[in-house]
């Protein structure tokens, strides 16, 4: 990997971790629906997916989950597997949405937000063998619209800004 790219990706990784930590420090929707969050780190993932490719997006995401594991959520803890499941499924779905549909970056962002919830609930069902959390799904779906649009708009601005660099 050329030096310029390595440096950029490292900075983007750092930014995604800061966004993640900030979000955990100030839980926006605390007490409403467990697991509901803005998904700010997805701004970075979306940007990387559009500016570079799925390979870099996967790299950044997986490293972020592992580093978050060391910093705050605990490596290989239950929360760790949730984050990993959500992150992997959302990147895969965003990649497919970008590739085979004509959705804009905002639509792709909403897909990412939804599949993040799906991924987490899937892991919960696997680990706990309980389907109770499916009850949260409709609410998570509804909230994924405003949060997905917001994240998508931010990423759109970033992608445009760095188009020629």
């Amino acid at each position, binding site marked *: 990997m050329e030096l310029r790219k390595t440096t950029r990706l490292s900075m983007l990784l750092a930014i995604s971790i800061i966004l993640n930590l900030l979000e*955990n420090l100030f*839980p926006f929707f*605390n*007490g409403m629906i*467990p*697991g509901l969050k803005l998904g700010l780190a997805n701004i970075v993932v979306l940007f990387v997916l559009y500016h570079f490719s799925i390979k870099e997006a996967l790299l950044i995401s997986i490293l972020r989950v592992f580093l978050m594991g060391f910093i*705050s*959520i*605990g490596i290989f*803890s*239950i*929360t760790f597997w*949730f984050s990993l499941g959500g992150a992997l499924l959302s990147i895969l779905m965003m990649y497919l949405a970008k590739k085979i*549909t*004509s*959705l*804009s970056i*905002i*639509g792709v962002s*909403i*897909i990412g937000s*939804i599949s993040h919830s799906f991924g987490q609930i899937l892991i*919960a069902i696997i*680990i*706990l*063998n*309980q389907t*109770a*959390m*499916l*009850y949260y*799904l*409709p*609410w998570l*779906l*509804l909230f*994924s*619209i405003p949060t997905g*649009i917001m994240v998508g708009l931010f990423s759109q601005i970033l992608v445009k800004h760095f188009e020629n660099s």
Partner: protein
Amino acid sequence: MNKNDIFLVLIIIVIAFVSLFFLINKEEGTEVVAYYEDKKVLTVPLEVDNKYIINGYLGEVQIEIKNNRVRVLEENSPRHLCSNQGWISKSYESIICLPNKVIINIENNSELDAIVK
């Protein structure tokens, strides 16, 4: 945002409301059932005010039943999502303490309901 994005948003809203309609049954729950992993560890009536302790993955999870509602009073978890969630009282609601692998459901103990579900 293009046309397809708006179409996507509309589909999501429809799916969300349809699934809400199916998930929420208006039945009042009659008992509180707590699970650790997938094992039932506590079954108590919702009418009786009391406090109970469940052994979770990270330590004790204390629950309180009062006025036909249940909440998690105290637990050991990184972000305390389940104690912040507050009271639940309907049969479709549940409190899920993922770090503790504990789930608290409100269930209906009549045989018929079990079959319908």
